[in-house]
């Protein structure tokens, strides 16, 4: 951890970025378990195109931080073999839109190895994917393809929105005996937050939450916004804006885990507010949005005052970046949806 500001001398809490927290999480896992190794394109000397693995090859060597040939199927496919040999590979897909060559391995092999072996084999691997838009990138660099993987039984799919989660969830994902698709909100990489390392010798038992628990980031009484990853910040901004204007009271639930969903927290929140909006960058058609809406209508039916609204990308390919501003949900679209569900 290189970035420390204004942390109290007696505490391990510090302000840092999500990027550095992810790095610190991987470092802690590698220090704890010699079987943890990293593999991906450009992750060694360069530290990855987003520098998330910066310095790790220098400290852990080329055998544990492996610069892979430029082939995603190869990266994930060989990681399967490494996991079968007893390693815990953490692989980096450089950008969301580059995961598709590895899709076959992820859904056919990674997801199913434990099942097809009747529990005899385990594939403890993490597939890190920087995802989402908002950075002005060219095509294939801004997608939110989490629904593909959440749809596949055998995979766990998680995503982070805070420095604390970046640090702890990374370690929890690596420690999981199941394969985990770990989505990193690339446009939030450099946002700072407080990170509590938990102690001089970080221990997973110090993690503030379980890997699959949802977090209520902002309490409210009028409407629930179910969101995750890069959109948590947008939802919180909407909640705060509404609060400042004496508007509706918005509860923001950060799902953190997309498979499994923490349905207890979801249902408790919607049962309390009676109104629900789903918010993510992903196109809404056959998406996490749809699963959330279906779940809420089935399990919270008698508490609902309005239909569940989905606020997400429109159902087109991710557009050229000059359209991002209107493609990606923003505070106004969230508040507009809030007004709509309150109008019933």
């Amino acid at each position: 951890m290189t970035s420390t500001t204004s942390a109290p001398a007696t505490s391990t809490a510090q302000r840092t970025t999500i990027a550095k927290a992810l790095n610190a999480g991987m470092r802690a896992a590698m220090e704890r378990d010699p079987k943890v190794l990293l593999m991906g394109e450009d992750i060694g000397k360069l530290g990855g195109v987003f520098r998330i693995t910066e310095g790790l090859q220098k400290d852990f060597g080329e055998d544990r931080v492996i610069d892979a040939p430029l082939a995603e199927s190869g990266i994930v496919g060989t990681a399967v073999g490494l996991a079968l040999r007893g390693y815990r590979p953490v692989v980096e897909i450089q950008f969301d839109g580059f995961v598709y060559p590895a899709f076959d391995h992820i859904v056919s092999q990674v997801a199913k190895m434990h099942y097809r072996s009747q529990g005899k084999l385990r594939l403890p691997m993490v597939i890190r994917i920087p995802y989402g838009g908002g950075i002005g990138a060219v095509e294939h660099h801004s997608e939110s393809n989490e629904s593909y993987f959440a749809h596949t039984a055998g995979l766990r799919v998680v995503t982070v929105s805070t420095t604390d989660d970046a640090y702890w969830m990374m370690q929890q994902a690596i420690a999981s005996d199941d394969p985990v698709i770990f989505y990193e909100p690339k446009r939030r990489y450099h946002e700072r937050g407080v990170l509590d390392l938990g102690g001089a010798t970080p221990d997973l038992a110090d993690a503030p939450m379980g890997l699959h628990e949802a977090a209520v980031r902002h309490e409210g009484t009028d409407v629930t916004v179910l969101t995750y990853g890069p959109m948590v910040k947008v939802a919180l901004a909407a909640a705060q804006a509404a609060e400042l204007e004496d508007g509706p009271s918005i509860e923001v639930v950060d799902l953190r885990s997309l498979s499994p969903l923490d349905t207890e927290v979801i249902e408790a929140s919607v049962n309390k507010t009676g109104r629900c909006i789903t918010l993510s960058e992903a196109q809404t058609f056959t998406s996490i949005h749809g699963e959330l809406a279906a779940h809420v209508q089935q399990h919270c039916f008698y508490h609902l005052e309005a239909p569940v609204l989905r606020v997400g990308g429109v159902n087109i390919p991710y557009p050229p970046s000059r359209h991002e501003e209107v493609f990606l949900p923003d505070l106004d679209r969230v508040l507009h949806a809030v007004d709509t569900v309150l109008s019933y």
Partner: protein
Amino acid sequence: MSDEEVARSAAPTTPAGDLPGGSAAAPARGLHEPPERDITDGGPDMVQFLDSEGRRVPLTDVNSPYASFLDELGPDDLRGMLRDLILVRRVDSEGFALQRQGELGLWPSLLGQEAAQVGPGRAMRTQDYAFPGYREHGVAWCKGVPPENLLGMFRGVNHGGWDSNENNFHLYTIVIGNQMLHAVGYAMGVQRDGDVATGDPDRDTAVMAFTGDGGTSQGDYNEALVFAAVANAPVVFYVQNNHWAISEPNDRQFRVPPYRRADGFGFPGVRVDGNDVLASYAVSRAALERARSGEGPTLVEAFTYRMGAHTTSDDPTKYRISAEVDIWKAKDPIDRMTKYLTAEGLVDQAWLDAVAAEADELAKRIRHACQTMPNPPHSEMFEHVYADPHPLVEREAAEFAAYMAGFED
């Protein structure tokens, strides 16, 4: 087809391996004009020790680098090879029969490829790890996987009824080519464990990845070769070029034979007579020892032929001519090994009769195991989706159990 085309497809042709200078340059041809196909003759580069008549091939520049591995074999080893060939064929024919009797949903036959599998199977050491496709019943046999365990997935009671780590034989992989990368990753793990080039024969480990000629078209196959080369991984790629990928002849998969493609990836490639168990054994031994000693990957192309259908689901009479099959019948791996060992005085009719009886017993055992294999309880389908608890699976399992409990027995 024109007369000329019929003549060309039926007759032995110039091996593509004879293209001058190893160049991939091919003569110009029309879109629908097939390249000349190397269907009967492995060409001058093919390592062979037993010809079709079961006679030992004299030492040549091509086979002599591998001859020393045969010198190590005693009479029991040679008889053991023939016994394996015969029993593996019987395992296969029983699998086929069980499918026809409705006991199995599907069976991929290895008929004709027994030597191509028993060779590497016997060349592997206990610690060596095999990553098969789904036709490697002979390798499974040599690795000690009980043949009845192979039936579960084809009967539909499981997706693989053996513990891969018990015999170092991974589960069958259905998606063509995936296992090639798994093998390379496993081999990278072997390297990191320091289990190569120690000089300890019980420790040094190689990994063997199996696929067919169709598999060589896959991206995964080619990525596996790249990753293995770059990592200098202790892996042997073993391509059983059985000439047919379901209905597609191998000229739909490549213009340059698989063994020659290895050069482009930066490691050796060898073509071996896959119907000659001595040759496939010796070449596999050499490649495995090379891997174990830290010298990196090798690509072995076993030149063989799939005598039956791709699986019990297809009908090869729709896509190939019987003259081609007849040519390969004459190259039968069991016939030639039997002739060789008989001529050498190592087996006689009494020995063959005893193995035939053993095969009958084995078939009976497999049939009984298949017919009495219990259906798993349906609740089992919810097990092992995840290693750690997953609330959705648990909830659905409970709902399913409650629903099923509502029915009368």
